């Protein structure tokens, strides 16, 4: 980000005592470990994490498919779950982009909607910018790649915070893969409505990740990872993605103290 590009500039609060966690529908049903790992990591930083049981989905699937009324109904139900004036940490850049950048227009008739949107922080952004976290790497040397979702990169402008976190891990070498900033081809219903184009995109993304010769790739978005991992599994490749919350927790934990994060 440059000095004159103010699009992604924002005010960051002091480290809070409490935060909300927004789990996202994908982590909820497919990858709950990453949600628990994010909570554990935040708790280790001395923060109380509140997880409203009434949360479901940010509404993005309908919104991106052109069903605004349906998206609005679901979005409103989410806003109602987060009434305390504390940060809302989201473990996905694309859901974050939806709630931070698209809610103001989608819910423009709602009073104080901007105040709600201003409380939205993507997970890696929150760790770096608000918590100013310092990580101590306990793991073995390894090479990883980082896949940043397009929403995290271009809507939220937080691709740099994910990178900053991995770079704090002393024994981890971050390898830049070819066409790193290019979309993996997920795009929600795009992958279904234009399956052949999406397939061509994920084929290239997996080939570029495999070329990078890494033991795993890290990402903060389960949408992309469902797409990329699904394609890798289909191709019978062993490379897989790991959510950045799980990866950071694993790298910073002594083996002996591992508990919650490993429950399957």
């Amino acid at each position, binding site marked *: 980000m440059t000095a*004159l590009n103010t699009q992604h500039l924002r005010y960051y609060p002091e480290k809070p005592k409490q935060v909300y966690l927004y789990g996202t529908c994908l982590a909820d049903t497919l990858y709950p470990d990453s949600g628990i790992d994010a909570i554990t990591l935040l708790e280790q930083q001395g923060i109380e994490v509140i997880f409203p049981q*009434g949360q479901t989905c940010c509404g993005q699937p309908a919104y991106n498919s052109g069903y605004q009324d349906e998206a609005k109904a*679901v979005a409103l139900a989410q806003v109602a779950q987060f009434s305390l004036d504390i940060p809302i940490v989201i473990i996905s850049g694309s859901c974050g982009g939806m709630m931070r950048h698209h809610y103001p227009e989608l819910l423009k008739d709602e009073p104080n909607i901007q105040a709600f949107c201003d409380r939205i922080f993507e997970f890696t952004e929150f760790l770096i910018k608000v918590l100013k976290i310092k990580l101590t790497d306990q793991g073995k040397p390894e090479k990883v790649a980082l896949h940043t979702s397009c*929403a995290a990169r271009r809507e939220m402008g937080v691709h740099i915070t994910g990178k900053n976190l991995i770079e704090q891990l002393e024994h981890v070498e971050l390898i830049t893969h070819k066409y790193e900033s290019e979309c993996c081809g997920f795009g929600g219903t*795009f*992958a279904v409505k234009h399956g052949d184009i*999406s397939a061509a995109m994920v084929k290239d993304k997996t080939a570029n990740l495999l070329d990078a010769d890494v033991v795993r790739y890290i990402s903060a978005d389960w949408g992309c990872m469902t*797409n990329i991992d699904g394609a890798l599994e*289909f191709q019978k490749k062993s490379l897989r993605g790991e959510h950045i919350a799980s990866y950071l927790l694993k790298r910073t934990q002594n083996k002996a103290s591992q508990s919650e994060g490993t429950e399957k």
Partner: protein
Amino acid sequence: MTVQQHVPKQNSPKENKYDPNESKYAKSASEFRANVSRDLSNDELKSNFRGAMDYLMDKRKVALSNEDELETLREQCKLIKQRCLLKLPTLLEQLEQNLEANGIRVHWAETITQANEIITTLIQDKNGKTVVKGKSMVSEETSLNDYLEDRDIECLESDMGEYIVQLAHEHPSHIIMPAIHQNKKQVADLFADKIEGFKHTTDVDALIGEGRRVLREKFCHADVGITGVNFAVAETGTLCLVENEGNGRMCTTVPDLHIAITGIEKVVEFLDDVPPLLSLLTRSATGQIISTYFNMISSPRKNGEKDGPKEVHLVLLDNGRSQAFADEEMRQTLQCIRCGACMNHCPVYTRIGGHAYGTVYPGPIGKIVSPHMLGLEATNSLPTASSLCGACGEVCPVKIPIPKLLLRLRSESNKPANTDGHKQIMKGEGSGRKKVEASIWFVWQLMHKHAFIYNSSMWFATRLRKLMPAKIGVWTSVRSAPKLAPKTLHERVKAHQAQTKKQQS
């Protein structure tokens, strides 16, 4: 505002017979899905596009390496175009007055057929038989070449890329580089096939030399030159033309009659508006600091001047632009200065190429401008063919929020039937709505609006995870199916909190 208000009586058609389907592109755009399957399996095509787009992206990056300068310029150019669009009706009138005062005749066309009729009449009035054409995407919009050919007027494309495309009986696959889908071997084969006496070579300079030789001959004998316009300056009545090959200069100086054609959105208010736009146009398009030629046409040949056309005409085309103009959000579509950076950076365009879109304008800009030209019914597969990755919006020199406009068009396409009699915003709105999809989203919102329904459904789904199908439609054609977790995060959090409490007590 519609252009109709400006159409002088003598140019008015007998009645408004506009039918969006009169463009041949409506049909090819409606075949988007079939076009995509055809072109995705063409490996040579894919490699031509990937190579060319990588090259163009690198060139742009180098030319715009100072990010602060880039941001300043983008903001400035956006504001220029937005100001000019806000004043569009007034500026068009001012442009007409100043052009006419300079001796350049102005004609208004609401439809592509009107534009073609105007141009044909102008040519026939001078008994013109041969036309050389500089690059003009607006004339592609009107399929002018076909129209003139049907009336026994020979029309030769003089831009090298356009010339190649014309020889191959194709249409441009990129708005700046029309023949980018062909590699040098394909061009050599084409020349060998079509140009008498051509000695087969894949040497690029030799290929261009051969094309130039053919074209030079034509320039000297053509009756008419037809070109596009990049900026039409209202303040001074000047037509600006950006080009690299000198063919635009030839088309606008050698033949006695010069006809320029452009869209109404190309008008800018001041001469001072041009330098920043030009600077960002060439750098965004090809990474050039400036184009080799920049032509400013401000009158026909004056007494005592040794060259230049005796007559200059400008045809201003609407073709659906008024529809975009009428809506504040979609008006941003008209900010476009046709640099092509959005297609160069688009992961979809790079893979399917320009012809798959079936439209005159391919790529991200094509997806948002074509629905206004061809109607949503023919084009409703275009706005959905995007992962909304945002690369187009990120590089757009005039900051058109392309992803947001794609969402808007998706929403227009899915609109329920017009039961309350609201004013129709777009031709073909609601034409993409499918009952099954609409019902899915209805049920989806019920489930996600009520956490109780959501949580109990997910509780059951995770318990029945073993019954999940291994195949889920097109998703599993290249991917394994995702597997539901044994327990949801909602449940896991409860357990986690209970454990934390236990540890604390």
